């Protein structure tokens, strides 16, 4: 049991490390200019020159997938940060104060949760003009309820614990109690939530870009590449396969990591 969860986590970490490295490398180097077209050399099958082949405008798919992985990680990181910060403020306030504050805040979170995620993101992106920044904010907002709930339940669990009551009795401020005494105990569920939110964020970004509401042309995004490739699926299957496999791998990586972490935590408690 122990070894299985560690294995899961390690596998997840390995996948993320691989993709993360690719995203990091793309900051410095990509084999071809991602937007350089070569109409004569379009829809080439994978080969030594173009590892993943070329797309309908003769752009190198490997370079574009690399560049898109950077976007995906950026969206994931920003969205998780937004979700975490807002979720912490809401969750901690609700959990720490309890009573009607908790009722009001959590009902708001419930309302947000009840609303279909993609639809909410679609509305947010449509109201403002579609671009990467709006997408990140929309996805961040989507992940708020998840964090708020995890953090709130953590506070509920620990706010009446003896060490917290003792700290308060000794005259510690609210901030000290929250940050020094409660937080350390709920870090691991937050990490699990963050890992899973990360994968959701990447998926939602792909979905929005697929629908034309995320990353805008000519810049590459896995979702956009999928939507561009669909007309050529019979003729150039590698065009759709490359972004599809990368989306699946990233999501798998973060989910394995999250699951492994959670299992480890469950063992300890």
């Amino acid at each position, binding site marked *: 049991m122990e070894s299985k969860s560690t294995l899961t986590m390690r596998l997840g970490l390995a996948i993320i490390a691989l993709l993360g490295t690719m995203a990091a490398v793309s900051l410095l180097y990509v084999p071809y200019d991602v937007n350089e077209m070569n109409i004569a050399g379009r829809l080439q099958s994978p080969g030594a020159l173009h590892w993943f082949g070329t797309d*309908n405008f003769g752009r190198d798919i490997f370079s574009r997938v690399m560049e898109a992985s950077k976007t995906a990680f950026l969206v994931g990181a920003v969205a998780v940060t937004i979700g975490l910060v807002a979720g912490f403020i809401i969750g901690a306030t609700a959990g720490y104060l309890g009573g009607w504050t908790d009722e009001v805040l959590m009902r708001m979170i419930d309302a947000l949760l009840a609303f279909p995620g993609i639809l909410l993101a679609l509305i947010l992106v449509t109201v403002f003009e579609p671009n990467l920044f709006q997408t990140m904010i929309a996805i961040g907002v989507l992940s708020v309820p998840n964090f708020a709930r995890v953090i709130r339940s953590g506070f509920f669990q620990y706010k009446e614990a003896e060490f917290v009551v003792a700290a308060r009795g000794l005259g510690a401020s609210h901030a000290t109690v929250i940050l020094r005494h409660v937080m350390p105990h709920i870090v691991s569920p937050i990490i699990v939530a963050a890992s899973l939110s990360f994968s*959701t964020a990447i998926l939602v970004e792909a979905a929005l870009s697929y629908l034309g509401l995320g990353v805008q042309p*000519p810049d590459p995004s896995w979702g956009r590449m999928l939507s561009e490739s669909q007309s050529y699926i019979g003729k150039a299957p590698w065009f759709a396969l490359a972004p599809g496999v990368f989306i699946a791998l990233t999501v798998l990586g973060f989910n394995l990591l999250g699951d492994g972490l959670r299992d480890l935590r469950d063992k300890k408690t």
Partner: protein
Amino acid sequence: MKQSWHESIYQNRRWSTILIFTLILTLLAACSGNSNSPTPAPSSSAQGGEPSPSAAPTPEPGSKLDGGDVVVIVPQDPDYLDPHLAVAAGTSEIMFNVFEGLLKPNEKGQLYPAIAESYEVAPDGLTYTFKLRSGVQFHNGESVKAADVKYSYERLAGIDTGKPLQASFASVTAVEAPDEATVVIKLKENNAAFLTALTAAVIPKDYADSNTKPIGTGPFKFVDYLPGQRLTLAKNPAYYVNGVPSLDKVEFRIIPDQEAAFLAFKSGEADIFPRIGTEKLEELGDEFQGVSGPQNLVQVLIYNIAKKPFDDVRVRQAVNHAINKDELIEGVALGNGIKLGSHLSPIMAQYFQEGLEDYYAYDVEKAKGLLAEAGYADGFSVKLSVPSNYAFHVATAEVAAQQLSKVGIKVTIEPVEWAVWLERIYKGHDYESTIIGFDGKLNPYDILNKYLSDSPNNLFKYNSPTFDETLRATVTEIDQEKRTALFKDLQTELAKEAAAVYIMDPYLNVALKKNLAGYKQYPLYVQDLSTVYWTN
């Protein structure tokens, strides 16, 4: 422990949901089609296939078989069955087979007498006299009389109501029927293009059920209509042209989704698939044939002449030199398009001014030189707004942006919703540059009037007194040759002034079963089934 078990189940389910979602997303790439509809622009980002630019029917080895049924795929429901109320192109596409006017357009866009047998236009251009063809019958068996024409065209002109149903009939003051076979139409003002308006449908006098059970004089008669499913037509055995139509029954099947339509066609459920994506033509087997040809659509890259730097003709010319149209046609339309040089497609045969397509040859150095002369040696930045529902225009924008970057023009692509495009750009003229396709009309005046300085549709912000004067002169010019020459001058002026970048007329593809013959492609949004027949 119990809780964590629960949680783990919950998480696992979430997990599989996410994975399934990824799969679905990947599959969507395979399954979902681009559903771009409103105007007849090519619907997909990709083109490919048979570059046979002939609109003529492909010769068939087999001999002609009379009769039979045909299923044609159409993407949308008709808006009105009443031909005088219908405005959607998708409606005329179907009802072209049911209704006829005094005149009818052919596949070259020329008018020929239909219900009329002959006509005469008075020298002042204000009186039109038509002799009706004898033996033309409505689908209810009654023969067409001058009173029916009078009723139909007065209804269109709004003689009783004061509100014309069709703008082209606004100048009609009276429709007279001196005898059963003669119709005289009187106009307020001379309008050389009025004949095109007379392709409008003639319906029986005082017939009130046109919107539920339309009756016309065309080669096919209306049978039934099931909204969202199909509209069926049957052969009009009393049609005045011998041997036309050949088919017994035509069903227009309404399938809005391109992908579903393609599957229906491939499985043999349908026989004719108009506007099929070029890349799909290649996927079809030997039992199918494709017909491709220009569709009278002018795809343009427009810049706002009222704004800097496009107020300078040198900048506009530089942009024209920087755009490689051949590469655009190859890259976006997979070679299936014809290069343009001004705002008229070669399919408008007699009015088309030849030789303008290479007026601005692709020349990066020349473009740079012109930019430097205009004071933009380092280039400039511009926002290119494209309607996001047209994958074809978005793809064009991507390639054009790439080409313009080579002369130092930095293009930011801004995809906008179709509704926003219409409101902000088409009506509001609030944009820097955009790419769009203008669909064709039979009358070149209706195509070029967007450039009139006082036209509300002048999104180019083109302002030229010579142009206004010349275009207005075409309205009253009765001499066809002189009128044609004026239209040619106008095209040359637009090219010289670089009023826009005229890119291409992308081919329209129609896929048919191999043993169908006689299909004709029109420079109009219609499917003419009167000449289609089965072979063995």
